[in-house]
């Protein structure tokens, strides 16, 4: 097991070296940075970055077809930057190649007095939102951006939250108040301005209606707003607006200790529960050099799959409900409740157990943990065919969703769509199979695929994924390895409590980790996982302190929402609801 992991990581670094060598042939000026996660990382300059990215997308074969993430780091107070070019703000582009099964990271240094960089939204359309987010958070100006307006922060906000000088706590700011005139200003700032988005108020023969769908609307799944330009019932154009659920989860990461940040991750994709912990702890473990036991890996996989089922249940129920079918969600919630009881038995928590730990899990599995799980699997084997005939085989539902919100694989990749939304187009790429993590390579399961990439296929793929997750859980039940539930490593947090009373070393670690938190060695790591809704990762930068220097959360929902106008144009209002229902997002996962 350990041998294969080592071999595969060596293989990936060899592949990584290949890309960098190819790239250096074209751009000899690039500077290479070694990172702990073996993700090839190169520094470009502001002038060359567009060519580098274009070359990575189209020039190399196979190319990096997806812009996986785009973010920035405020480097001004970072101490451990040895071997990196001088930079006040670093823009980080992260690309994904499906053919190579690998990522690449491109960094561009910017100086404080000159925060300008050319947009790449013409190379990847999904760069649009990422660049707007960067502008909000760091004040970096993306030149020639088509719509350079605030995205996450309110238009009235002063300052850039992810800059180091911006306060992280409410107590460091003026007490909050909302007098009437400020409220009016805020409301006015939210009013939709068609001209700003290049829309006209009148068509050739009709007036257009501008309708706000959300933020307070029953089917936008949270506080999400789409401004629709309507010609009767037909959508002429749509402008999604996010940020109503923004809680500054990334900023929190810079303030909380590595260990005490764990509960915040649960609440990012709040339907994913402990699955959110996984990319976070794996990135930390990489930096800390912790190798966890097979038992820990299997427990993590099992609980992650439990939460995948939970999330897909909710998706499936609300999907049926949003096209007007009232009952399935109630049946599904009975099953969901059962699963929550099982999760509670194992972890003590229900929706947000925050149960994974740096170097393991919080506790060992309780005695008899598998009995209820087996019952659950038996029950679901019986219930799933009912749900299929009730929802997926319903002719009205098919009428409503087949051929609605269609996109093909190429479009999906252009827009950064991952997870079920990508597999619904028939593209066979699941991180658990392609770049296995946490021991997924040891499991036998299939990757369900769609054909048409429409709303119906997205539901179908997730429905089948529930069945596959049941298979994975069953294998965990049958082959749960023995072993410690926490790694024997000084940075395991917290260290096993039962040993603290035996040896002084563990007692000291326990004391330090509980009071200040562990100090993770300086470095950078990012370990994407196949989360409930698509690829999710935590790009962590450690400066050797007890808190993270920069926590970047790449969530799938953010990218998916950006594609809504593409899917909605020329459809009707009712289709928008079916499309939104089929995306499977939660606003906390979008806004963070």
């Amino acid at each position, binding site marked *: 097991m350990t041998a294969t992991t080592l071999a595969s990581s060596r293989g990936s670094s060899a592949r990584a070296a290949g890309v960098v060598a190819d790239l250096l042939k074209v751009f000899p000026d690039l500077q290479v940075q070694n990172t702990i996660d073996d993700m090839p990382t190169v520094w470009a300059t502001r002038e060359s970055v567009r060519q580098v990215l274009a070359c990575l997308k189209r020039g190399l074969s196979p190319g990096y077809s997806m812009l996986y993430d785009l973010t920035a780091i405020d480097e001004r107070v970072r101490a451990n930057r040895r071997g990196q070019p001088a930079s006040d703000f670093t823009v980080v582009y992260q690309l994904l190649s499906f053919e190579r099964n690998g990522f690449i990271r491109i960094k561009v240094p910017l100086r404080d007095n000159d925060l300008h960089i050319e947009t790449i939204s013409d190379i990847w359309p999904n760069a649009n939102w990422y660049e707007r987010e960067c502008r909000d958070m760091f004040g970096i100006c993306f030149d020639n951006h088509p719509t350079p307006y605030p995205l996450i922060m309110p238009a009235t906000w002063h300052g850039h939250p992810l800059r180091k000088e911006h306060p992280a706590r409410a107590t460091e700011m003026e007490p909050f108040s909302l007098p009437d005139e400020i409220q009016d200003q805020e409301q006015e700032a939210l009013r939709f301005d068609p001209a700003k988005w290049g829309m006209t108020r009148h068509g050739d023969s009709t007036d257009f209606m501008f309708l706000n769908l*959300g933020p307070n609307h029953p089917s936008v799944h949270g506080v999400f707003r789409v401004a629709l330009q309507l010609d009767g019932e037909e959508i002429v154009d749509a402008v999604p607006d996010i940020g109503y659920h923004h809680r500054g989860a990334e900023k929190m990461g810079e303030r909380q200790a590595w260990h005490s940040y764990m509960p915040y991750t649960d609440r990012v994709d709040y339907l994913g529960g402990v699955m959110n912990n996984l990319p976070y702890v794996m990135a930390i473990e990489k930096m800390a050099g912790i190798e966890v036991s097979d038992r820990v890996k299997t427990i993590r996989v099992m609980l992650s799959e439990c939460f995948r089922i939970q999330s897909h249940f909710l998706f499936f129920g609300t999907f049926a409900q949003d096209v007007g079918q009232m009952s399935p969600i109630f049946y599904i919630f009975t099953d969901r409740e059962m699963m929550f009881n099982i999760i509670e038995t194992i972890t003590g928590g229900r929706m947000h157990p925050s149960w994974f730990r740096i170097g393991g899990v919080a506790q060992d599995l309780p005695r008899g943990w598998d009995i209820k799980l087996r019952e659950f699997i038996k029950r679901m084997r019986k219930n799933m065919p009912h749900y299929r005939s009730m929802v997926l085989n319903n002719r009205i539902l098919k009428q409503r969703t087949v051929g609605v919100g269609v996109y093909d694989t190429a479009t999906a990749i252009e827009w950064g769509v991952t997870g079920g939304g990508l597999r619904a187009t028939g593209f066979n790429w699941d991180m658990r199979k392609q770049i296995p993590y946490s021991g997924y390579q040891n499991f036998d399961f299939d990757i369900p695929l769609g054909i048409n990439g429409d709303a119906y296929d997205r539901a179908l793929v997730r429905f089948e994924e529930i069945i596959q997750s049941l298979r994975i859980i069953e294998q965990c039940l049958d082959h749960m390895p023995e072993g410690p539930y926490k790694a024997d490593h000084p940075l395991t947090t917290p260290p096993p409590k039962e040993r603290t009373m035996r040896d002084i070393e563990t007692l000291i670690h326990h004391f330090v980790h509980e009071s200040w938190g562990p100090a993770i060695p300086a470095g950078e790591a990012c370990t994407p996982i196949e989360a409930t809704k698509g690829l999710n990762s935590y790009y962590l930068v450690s400066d050797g302190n007890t808190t993270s220097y920069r926590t970047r959360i790449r969530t799938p929902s953010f990218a998916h929402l950006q594609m809504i106008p593409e899917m909605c144009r020329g459809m009707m209002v009712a289709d928008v609801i079916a499309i939104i229902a089929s995306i499977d997002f939660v606003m906390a996962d979008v806004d963070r």
Partner: protein
Amino acid sequence: MSYGASLITHLWPLVLFLVLVIGLISLMLAGPYFLGSRRNARATGEPYECGIVPVGSAQYHVPIPFYLFAIFFVIFDLEAVFLFAWAVAVRETGWAGFIEALVFIVILLVALLYLWRLGALDWRTFRQKRDRASVLLR
């Protein structure tokens, strides 16, 4: 007894019923007027549009497809009314009446078929048709 008087003796329960219904509705409207609370917050007087200040008013020019319904309704419902008269007298009019009605219905059906072929009964948008045609049906 005159025709009017007999009408009244016959219809008075209906009139009484309608008067009582109106009375009940008035009560339902009046009740909250006296019992209901009064409150006026800052945003009470704004139209509901998901919590955002609206752009433009809801009084705008309704797109043409909606008028099509009205026209179809006028055509077909009026024709249907003629059929009502035939339906109640179908035995009296016999086969002659039936053939006339049949001709009438066939003309109506032909008109419907014409509208159908014209695409007037398909209110889908261009994209809805295209996307639906592009997918594989299972």
